C-alpha cells in the first residue's frame, strides 16, 4: 500500500516521462492519467496528427502495461477483438485464441470507423470487464484500460458512437493544436532523436499502478463535493440548450476523475477546483444538444461551461 504523496510523486513522474514524447500537452495528459487512475477509459477525439496514438502508446510504456492496438475498420468483426475458438487438429479440440482485448492498455484507433456491432462488443467489454465467447466467459484482468481515438471532422464512412455508448467513456479529451514554439520543439526533438521511434522508460510497474489506483480509492470526498457533482450533472439536464443531459453516471464520473486529479495534485481529498477542472471532459460528451442548435457554436462543452458558471460551489458557510 502506498500513501497519497508517493502515489502523486509516481503519477507526476509518469507525466514527466510522457512529456518527453508528447510536447506541451500537460493538462490533457493529466486528465487522461486521472481517468486511468480512476480505473476508467478515455476517448481521445481530435484531428489527425495531434499525437493521440503517440500519447496512448506512451501511457502504455510508462505505466508498464501490455499494449495492443486495434485499427477499427469497417470490416472489423467482434471476434477480431474478443478472440475466438480455433480447432486444434493435433489435440482434436477447440482452444480459445484471445483477441486484442486481453491486454493492459488497448488503443482502439478510429473507433468510429467500425460498425455498431463491433463497437458494442468493445464497449460491453469496457463496461463488464469480461468477454463472453461461445457461451464461455473470460475475465479481463485489471488493470484494463481502453484509449479510443476518433476523428471529429470526417463523417464519410463512419459510425458515430451513440450517446449511450459515449457514456461509457469516463472522459473525452481533445489535445488541440500546439503553438508555434511547441510545434518546433516536436521537430527539434525528432532531429535530436535521429530516428522515428520514440521509446519511453517504464516509470511504474503494473502492480504499482494498481497500488496507485487503490490510493485513489481512499481519497476523501466531502458530502458537499459529492452533492456539487450531482448538481452539475443535473444542471446539464435542465439547461435550455439541452435535449438530453448527463446521466447520473456523469455525476459519478465527475467525482471519480476528480479523485484521480486530486491524487496527482498530491492531495488525499477532493476540492471544488478538482471538480471544475475535470467537468468539461467528464460531462460534455454526455450532453445532447437540441437539433435546432446543431449548426451553431453551441455544444456540450458550452453547456457544461455555462453550468459551471451557475451552480453554486461548496462554501465555508455550508460547514460553519
Amino acid at each position: 500500500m502506498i500513501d497519497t504523496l508517493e502515489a502523486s510523486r509516481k503519477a507526476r513522474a509518469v507525466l514527466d516521462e510522457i512529456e518527453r514524447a508528447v510536447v506541451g500537452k500537460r493538462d490533457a495528459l493529466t486528465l487522461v492519467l486521472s481517468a486511468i487512475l480512476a480505473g476508467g477509459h478515455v476517448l481521445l477525439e481530435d484531428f489527425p496528427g495531434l499525437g493521440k496514438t503517440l500519447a496512448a502508446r506512451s501511457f502504455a510504456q510508462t505505466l508498464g502495461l501490455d499494449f495492443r492496438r486495434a485499427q477499427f475498420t469497417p470490416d472489423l468483426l467482434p471476434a477480431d477483438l474478443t478472440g475466438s475458438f480455433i480447432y486444434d487438429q493435433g489435440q482434436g479440440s477447440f482452444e480459445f485464441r484471445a483477441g486484442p482485448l486481453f491486454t493492459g492498455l488497448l488503443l482502439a484507433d478510429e473507433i468510429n470507423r467500425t460498425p455498431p456491432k463491433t463497437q458494442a462488443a468493445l464497449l460491453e467489454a469496457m463496461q463488464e470487464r469480461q468477454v463472453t465467447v461461445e457461451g464461455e466467459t473470460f475475465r479481463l484482468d485489471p488493470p484494463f484500460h481502453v484509449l479510443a481515438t476518433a476523428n471529429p471532422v470526417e463523417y464519410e464512412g463512419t459510425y458515430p458512437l451513440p450517446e449511450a455508448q459515449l457514456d461509457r467513456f469516463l472522459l473525452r479529451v481533445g489535445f488541440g493544436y500546439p503553438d508555434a514554439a511547441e510545434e518546433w520543439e516536436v521537430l527539434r526533438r525528432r532531429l535530436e532523436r535521429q530516428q522515428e521511434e520514440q521509446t519511453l522508460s517504464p516509470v511504474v510497474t503494473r502492480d504499482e499502478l494498481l497500488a496507485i489506483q487503490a490510493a485513489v480509492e481512499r481519497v476523501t470526498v466531502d458530502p458537499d463535493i459529492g452533492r456539487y457533482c450531482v448538481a452539475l450533472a443535473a444542471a446539464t439536464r435542465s439547461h435550455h440548450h439541452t435535449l438530453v443531459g448527463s446521466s447520473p453516471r456523469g455525476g459519478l464520473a465527475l467525482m471519480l476523475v476528480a479523485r484521480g486529479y486530486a491524487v496527482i495534485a498530491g492531495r488525499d481529498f477532493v476540492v471544488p477546483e478538482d471538480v471544475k477542472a475535470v467537468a468539461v471532459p467528464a460531462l460534455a460528451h454526455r450532453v445532447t444538444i437540441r437539433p435546432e442548435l446543431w449548426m451553431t457554436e453551441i455544444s456540450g462543452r458550452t453547456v457544461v461551461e455555462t453550468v459551471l458558471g451557475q451552480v453554486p460551489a461548496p462554501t465555508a458557510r455550508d460547514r460553519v
Partner: protein
Amino acid sequence: MGTTPPTPRGLTPVALGAAVLVLCALVAATFDGPRWSERDRVTDRSSASEDDERDQPEDEAAAPEDEAAAPEDDEPWLPWVPPADLLLLLPVAAVFIVALVVAARLRVVRRRRTLTRRAAVRASPHHDEPAPDETVEDGLLGAIDAGATAIGEGSPRNAIVAAWVRLEQAVVGDHFPHRPEETPSELVERAVASYRLDVEAISRLAALYREARFSAHPVTEEHRDEAADCLRRLLATITTTRLGGTRAP
C-alpha cells in the same frame, strides 16, 4: 459561446415611447369625439328641422333659435389658446423626449465603460475589478485583524475555516460581488486583482482553508500557526501598501 439572436434593446424605449404617444393621440381623439358628435347631432337636428319646416310650420319660431345656437357652440372660448387635448399632449411629448435623451446618454456611458473595461483587460492581467476604496479596505483590514485574533480559539480546523469565512465576507461588497459559483482559488484570483494583498499569503491561506474544509485527515496546530502567519502577512501588506500607496507584488 452561444449564438443567441441579438435583442434590439436600443429600440425598446423608442417603441415604448411611440406606443405612449399613440395612446395619447387616441385619448385626445376620444376627447374630441363627443364635440364632433354634438356638432353632427346639431347638424342632423337642423336638417331635420328643415324637414319639419315643410311638414310642421308651427315650429318655425324654435328652429332659427337652434340654428343660431349651434354655431355659437362651435366657437372656441379663447381662440388664440390651443385646444386642451393638445396642451395635454405637450408634457407627455416633453417627458418622452427627455426619456429618450436620458436613455441615449446612459447607453453612451455604458458603452464607454465597456470599452474602457475591455481596454483594461487587454492592458493588464489584473483586470476584473476596479481599485478598492479606503472604506472597503478598512473592512478587510478589520476582518483580517479579527481573524488573526480569533485564530487561536477552538479547534485548528474550525479556526481556519472561520478565518476564511471572515475574509470572504469582508472582501464581498458593492464593487466585489458575491459569486456563489466561485471556488476559493477563483475568489483569491479576483481578490488579488482587486485588493492590495500578499498573493503568496492569501493563496496559502486558501489552500489551508481547503484542507480544513474538505479533508478528513487531522488538521494540526502547525496548520493553525501557518494560517496565523498568513493572516499576519496579509495584515502587514495592507497596512504597508496603504501607507506607501502602492500595490503589493
